[in-house]
């Protein structure tokens, strides 16, 4: 006899424990989720197609955004984080964009350090940071004949070195201290010899992707002055080793002052110098990059919209195929929310998994970039600093969330329409 009201007695019912169901019982969210997953599994080819389409779209967006953000990041390093709006170098110095982005190019051309105060006194100049760069392979550091860029800076005026200090000793910098570039691996507090004189590694800079900066050894002007005589004895009478000489001055402008205005002021007051930077070069690069970024963003938006349309069309077909199942589901008591929820869960699972795959593909693609394009750029001295792992992770998460939202959005209209139809209409209309 069948009686749904009597208490459960598994033994009396002949309940086979060998194939027992989950004893705690699967709740409706679990069952709806499970149904969604199994429905995706039922049409493997179609699901794989959907996953592939979403993966390609999400992967392209993820890779594009990370690359563009990395480029922006690299530009920020060049234009903003290094703190210089302009670089003033002796006339005749060969300048390339890389040097202009970061610091003075190692060169024996110099000018007098007294120019720094005159420059600082110009209207519109906020801060000036002199540097002396001396490239030598006779320092005795790092092995025989290793070329080293020694960069002297003024710790009081510096705007380009100390902001990059990633690690440092817990005390002020002293005259016998040296700061090492991001690619140097000396431990903090360890000793190194330069021209036979011991120096303590005071700090280590972060990676900037610019060779001079990353492999340089940074000392104060005071320290350079103390070492000058020894260096002259070993390296000979080179111009940068003459007292009171510098290789260039990094300039930070006052707010509201354009580089063009400052350029005129510098050239009018300081003969024999060359101004690198300013709107003609830097702004055009930035504007070009911004236009490119905007174009990429529009392209990405189009890709996501087309993905949403594709998901919508696909789910319309899926729903049309499953009308009877949905009608039956309604007949046994499923409410509109259950139907919509189940279908949206399916769409969200498919698009989220597709997006995860896309991001994984994007990471592989970026590794490929790292070993080809980025390596090539860096070999030319063009800075390229990847976005941080946390930033990349956030973009991946955003792509996955966006893809899921698009999946849900794409499936919403067909799901809502289907859930609003009468159960009998759904049951008998399956063709």
């Amino acid at each position, binding site marked *: 006899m069948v*009686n749904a009201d009597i208490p459960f007695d*598994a033994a009396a*019912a*002949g309940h086979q424990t060998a194939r027992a169901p989950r004893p705690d019982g699967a709740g409706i969210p679990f069952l709806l989720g499970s149904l969604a997953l199994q429905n995706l599994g039922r049409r493997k080819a179609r699901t794989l197609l959907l996953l592939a389409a979403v993966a390609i779209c999400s992967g392209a967006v993820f890779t594009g955004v990370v690359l563009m953000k990395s480029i922006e990041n690299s530009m920020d390093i060049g234009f903003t984080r290094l703190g210089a709006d302009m670089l003033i170098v002796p006339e005749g110095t060969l300048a390339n964009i890389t040097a202009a982005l970061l610091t003075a190019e190692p060169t024996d051309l110099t000018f007098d350090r007294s120019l720094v105060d005159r420059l600082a006194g110009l209207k519109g100049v906020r801060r000036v940071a002199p540097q002396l760069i001396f490239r030598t392979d006779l320092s005795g550091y790092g092995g025989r004949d290793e070329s080293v860029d020694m960069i002297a800076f003024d710790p009081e005026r510096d705007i380009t070195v100390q902001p990059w200090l990633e690690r440092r000793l817990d005390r002020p910098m002293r005259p016998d201290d040296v700061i090492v570039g991001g690619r140097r691996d000396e431990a903090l507090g360890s000793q190194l010899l330069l021209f036979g004189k011991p120096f303590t590694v005071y700090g280590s800079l972060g990676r900037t992707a610019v060779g001079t900066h990353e492999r340089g050894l940074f000392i104060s002007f005071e320290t350079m002055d103390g070492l000058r005589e020894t260096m002259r004895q070993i390296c000979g009478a080179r111009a940068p080793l003459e007292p009171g000489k510098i290789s260039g001055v990094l300039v930070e402008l006052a707010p509201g002052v354009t580089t063009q205005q400052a350029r005129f002021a510098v050239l009018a007051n300081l003969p024999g110098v060359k101004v690198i930077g300013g709107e003609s070069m830097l702004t055009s690069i930035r504007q070009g990059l911004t236009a490119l970024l905007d174009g990429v963003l529009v392209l990405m938006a189009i890709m996501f919209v087309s993905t949403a349309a594709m998901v919508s069309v696909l789910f319309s077909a899926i729903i049309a195929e499953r009308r009877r199942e949905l009608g*039956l589901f309604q007949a046994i008591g499923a409410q509109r929310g259950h139907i919509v929820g189940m279908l949206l869960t399916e769409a969200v699972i498919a698009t989220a998994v597709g997006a995860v795959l896309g991001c994984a593909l994007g990471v592989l693609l970026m590794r490929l970039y790292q070993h080809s394009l980025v390596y090539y750029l860096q070999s030319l001295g063009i800075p390229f600093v990847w976005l941080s792992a946390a930033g990349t992770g956030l973009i991946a998460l955003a792509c996955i969330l966006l893809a899921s939202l698009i999946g849900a959005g794409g499936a919403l209209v067909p799901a809502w329409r289907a859930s609003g139809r009468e159960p009998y209409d759904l049951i008998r209309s399956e063709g």
Partner: protein
Amino acid sequence: MLSCGHVGKTYATERGDVDAVKDIDLDVPSGEFAAIVGRSGSGKSSLMAMIGGLSRPTRGAVRVAETDIWALADDRLARFRNREIGFVFQFASLLPTLRIIDNVALPALLGRPREAKAAYQNAAELLGQLGLAEYIDAYPAEISAGEQRRAVIARALINAPSLLLADEPTSDLDEQTEIEIMAQFQELNRDRGMTLIMVTHNLRLAEQADRVLHIANGSLVS
């Protein structure tokens, strides 16, 4: 238990309106086993769909357990169906991707989502009573058509409804299974006093009911 007053259904087609059901008045008292018999296209399934809250009548009213079901909002109607009406359809109506026990427990889970454990216990018990205890963890494709139909009956009973509607419940079953299914219906009606309405084109089956109603061209003829 069931009262239909001037219930009619008109479908709009390209060739004009078609009256599938024409102003039917019908009362089925509680505990009765009624069979609605008619040829294909006579309107019997449309009538059953309106009685079961699956298809809105073009006109008239349907009262089940003193409730005017078509006056209810959609979600309330869904809850009413879930609680008060059990369905046995003519097609294989188990969800193929769910196990038998999940299929049977589903209406209980939809109605009382927080009582999952009790739903599964009841589902296992019902399957045991219908001789399907060994298949509770199986998938629909792993059992025979007759066993699937018994599982559908278990699903229809899981919420202990006051009205059981069966639309051609034995349409594609062998004779022996048909006899077993009908025996179960009669047992439900006789021993539990469940109100049962069965739609069929098979007169021999219909004769096992307390009352046989004939429908032709959308109207009850006897």
